[in-house]
């Protein structure tokens, strides 16, 4: 039997459709990693990119195609937890180890021993921001404005509210919960109501696209309290769209370019700037990490056998990725530090690092 001299890694991302923005950023990181590390075990690594079109039916088919037709050794993806979930059963059945980059919903890896991820999950992030608001901002009254049909945002908001209530010890410390839908562009009614409640801080988990509009509309309505949010904000477009309105907003994310956590971070940042001529987003770093994590496991497994590879990935401990040190827990979720950043002078600036509580 002829040994193939390439190793195929499937990339399964929304490159078109509603989630295209995130998917494309993630692919940038993955491609960069592939460029820097084109070989492993003496073989060339080839990326097979499958567009899942931000659509579940497509996502499942795309995954099946990677598994069955392209016979990839491992898969990376996908931006958007719901798309990842659509592929869950397929990679499990096909026994193809899959590493998610930025899908933070707990259900992606739950009950699926072939699904891993290099990011932390929603509960952790929600808790981190509640802590930040309570201890650093001295907030007693928080308002929420959440993207109600985005599982990511709803998850983050729930964990934020739970922790914030616990911290303040007051049930009514959440003074307003306003909802909006993906794709909404007008938030004036919600914000006007929030303004009337006069909160100390507003937690606004959601896509950067809507969030930037929310914050700039809030400022126009004369809302001056701090806005805090989640990792999805960390894109150049968030700054471009929000402009001066997003000055001072704070959010949790995976890594910071200013404080390269690892040698890999520095390498990544430099290469990314060179390649794409812009500042890297966290999801790009995560895509990058997913790739190098797989390569690392391949090396340890010293084989392209998918089951062996899975076992090695599961054993990952203290792996130095671009976006931090990764240890995978029993679920396959990364335990890692969260970074807090602020927008200052139109740039994302490092503020703090928060370690997970054991």
């Amino acid at each position, binding site marked *: 039997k002829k040994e193939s001299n390439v190793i195929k890694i499937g990339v399964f991302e929304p490159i078109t459709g509603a989630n295209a923005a995130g998917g494309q950023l993630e692919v940038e990181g993955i491609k960069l990693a592939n460029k820097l590390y084109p070989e492993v075990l003496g073989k060339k690594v080839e990326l097979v990119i499958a567009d899942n079109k931000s659509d579940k039916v497509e996502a499942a088919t795309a995954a099946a195609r990677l598994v069955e037709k392209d016979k990839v050794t491992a898969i990376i993806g996908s931006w958007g937890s719901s798309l990842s979930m659509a592929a869950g059963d397929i990679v499990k059945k096909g026994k193809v180890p899959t590493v998610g980059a930025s899908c933070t919903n707990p259900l992606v890896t739950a009950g699926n021993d072939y699904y891993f991820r290099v990011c932390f999950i929603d509960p952790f992030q929600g808790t981190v921001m509640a802590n930040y608001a309570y201890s650093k901002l001295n907030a007693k009254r928080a308002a929420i404005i959440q993207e109600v049909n985005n599982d990511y945002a709803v998850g983050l908001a729930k964990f934020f509210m739970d922790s914030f209530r616990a911290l303040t010890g007051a049930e009514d410390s959440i003074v307003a919960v306003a909802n909006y*839908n993906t794709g909404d562009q007008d938030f004036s*009614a*919600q914000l006007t109501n929030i303004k009337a409640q006069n909160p100390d801080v507003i937690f606004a988990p959601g896509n950067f696209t809507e969030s930037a509009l929310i914050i700039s509309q809030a400022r126009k309505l*004369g809302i001056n309290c701090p806005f805090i949010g989640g990792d999805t904000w960390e894109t150049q*477009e968030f700054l471009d769209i929000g*402009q001066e309105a997003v000055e001072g907003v704070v959010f949790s994310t995976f890594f910071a370019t200013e404080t390269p956590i690892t040698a890999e971070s520095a390498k990544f940042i430099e290469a990314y700037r060179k390649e794409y001529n812009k500042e890297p987003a966290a999801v790009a770093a995560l895509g990058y990490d997913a790739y190098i994590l797989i390569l690392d496991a391949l090396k340890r497994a010293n084989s392209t056998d998918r089951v062996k590879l899975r076992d090695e990935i599961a054993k990952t401990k203290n792996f130095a990725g671009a976006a931090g040190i990764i240890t995978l827990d029993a679920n396959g979720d990364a335990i890692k530090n969260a970074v807090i950043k602020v927008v200052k002078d139109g740039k994302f600036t490092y503020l703090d690092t928060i370690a997970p509580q054991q």
Partner: protein
Amino acid sequence: MAFDLFLQHLSNGISLGSLYALIAIGYTMVYGILRLINFAHGDIFMMATYFAFFGIVTFHIPWYITFPLVLVLTAALGIGVEATAYRPLREAPKISILISAIGASFFLENLTIVLFGGVPKPFPAPKLFTDVVQVGSVSIQKLTFYIPVVTVISLLGLVYLINKTKTGMAMRAVSMDQETARVMGININHTIAFTFGLGSFLAAVGGIMWGMKFPQIQPLMGVIPGLKCFIAAVIGGIGNIGGAVIGGFILGIGEIMLVAFLPNLTGYRDAFAFILLILILLYKPTGILGEKTAEKV
């Protein structure tokens, strides 16, 4: 305070409503003449914002030159879409034309994604329009004063054009009976192309206003406004230009008031537009100002 709050909501509502109205006018005009739901209208609207982006950001052309240029380019784009996607189907069953419209819409969206990427870009809104003025405790963007003015000017211009000019008469004749219109010496291809160009021109006006109010553009940004403004047009009685304006305001103010006073139902905001639509259609099956089409048997 409570009254101020209401005033703030009302100002928000008028601002959104007039924007809906502005876009709905173009939609309804094209429908009125061609009896065609131009699903690509929202995407033409989207393209206009990209034209503006490239003009101002990429080529550094000042906005007062870019904007008129955008209007012309978008009109040309509309004429192009008509010529490729609709003209060959002049005598085809309605459903084919509708599919072609949907196809054109998908095509524009996907092409934009391939060419410009799916990542949103900031719309370069001149400060002049986006500044905020404070009226009592109510904060109002300057744009909120400009948009209704633009809407009313467009409305009056369009009504004049359609009812008082020879071109308008030809447009109406084409809407009733294309074959006979041809017998009368009307070049229906030109007339329809003109209608489309005009509709796209209005879409571009709406797109620029929208971009200034919500300064973020992306390839799928036209879908929801397209749908909402179509609903506004139907609520007002599709084909009726005054109706579109009324529908736009009802929808805009209604949406804001729903979110404002029943915040628990915010999740139902998009459904609200449809619920309103269905309630109005049940009461008046052809919309508020729609003509009765009781068939003479």
